[in-house]
């Protein structure tokens, strides 16, 4: 299995619909500071780690929605996974649903091969192909392992066990 394509729509600084095709092997992504490189890794984490504490740097999920245009009220990311000629498309979408007492309210939608699914279906597919937030090393994680204490470091192994 490998990650064949990432599709971003209004996700952070990706204000246009963008499709990024990937190939097996070793792909490098480069570009100036602030151009949007880490936002690609955040987009993959957005789909792979719906319950993960490593979740997106933004804090509130609605901060993931592209802010450059006024009337944009949703963001969407699809991952296309290919496994021996079979294709699985995992999509996550967040849509603003402001309430009088909570302007940051939102709805979260999950899709498997473009059919609405529940969070638990989603998590099931991910764990059966052993894909998780552990597949992503975010910017700064390398130094975090050094700076964390011995006990939090042991907890990394607890989570795996």
């Amino acid at each position, binding site marked *: 299995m490998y990650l064949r394509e990432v599709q971003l729509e209004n996700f952070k600084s990706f204000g246009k619909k963008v499709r990024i095709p990937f190939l097996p092997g070793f792909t490098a992504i480069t570009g100036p500071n602030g151009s949007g490189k880490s936002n690609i890794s955040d987009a993959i984490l957005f789909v792979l780690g719906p319950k993960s504490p490593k979740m997106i740097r933004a804090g509130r999920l609605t901060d993931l929605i592209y802010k450059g245009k006024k009337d944009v009220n949703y963001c969407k990311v699809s991952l296309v996974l290919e496994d021996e000629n079979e294709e699985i498309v995992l999509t996550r979408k967040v849509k603003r649903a402001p309430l009088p007492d909570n302007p940051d309210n939102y709805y979260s939608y999950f899709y498997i091969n473009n059919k609405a699914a529940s969070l638990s279906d989603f998590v099931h597919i991910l764990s059966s192909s052993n894909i998780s937030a552990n597949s992503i*090393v975010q910017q700064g994680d390398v130094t975090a392992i050094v700076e964390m204490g011995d006990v939090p470091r042991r907890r990394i192994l607890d989570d795996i066990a």
Partner: protein
Amino acid sequence: KKDAFYTVYEAVKENFELIYTELLGGGEAELVLENKENPFEGGLIIKARPKGKRIMRLNALSGGEKSMASLAFIFAIQAYDPSPFYILDEVDMFLDGKNAEKVADMIKERSRNTQFIAISLRRVTLNKADHIYGVTMQEGISTIVGNVNLSQVEEIVEVK
């Protein structure tokens, strides 16, 4: 629960000690439990001995030496619980040329049967990749600049 922990610990410990020596081309490292009988009451200590030096705890090493030990630890966990692909975001930041090359070599070798996507500003890392993608931003919107070669990238960013 304790048994499950021991299985993971023993496997990651063995991986870590092998991968550290392979990654640095020498030296040795070890994972140590603070409290072997009751692991949940103590922490996990990383010790490393870069080539030609004494063994020390992680916090006595230099910035680059710490990064290499952490990377070996990350690779050791990934080897125990393999995933079909990995995303690495600027893991080569604190490394000098030789160490950055060692890390890029390890990624390249493992990319034969596992997909690796590495975000990097380092020339030495971009040199080893099968494909290089550029990202640029205009008026606050990011776009991807497809398959570029190293000389094109020099324009986007003076590659480290």
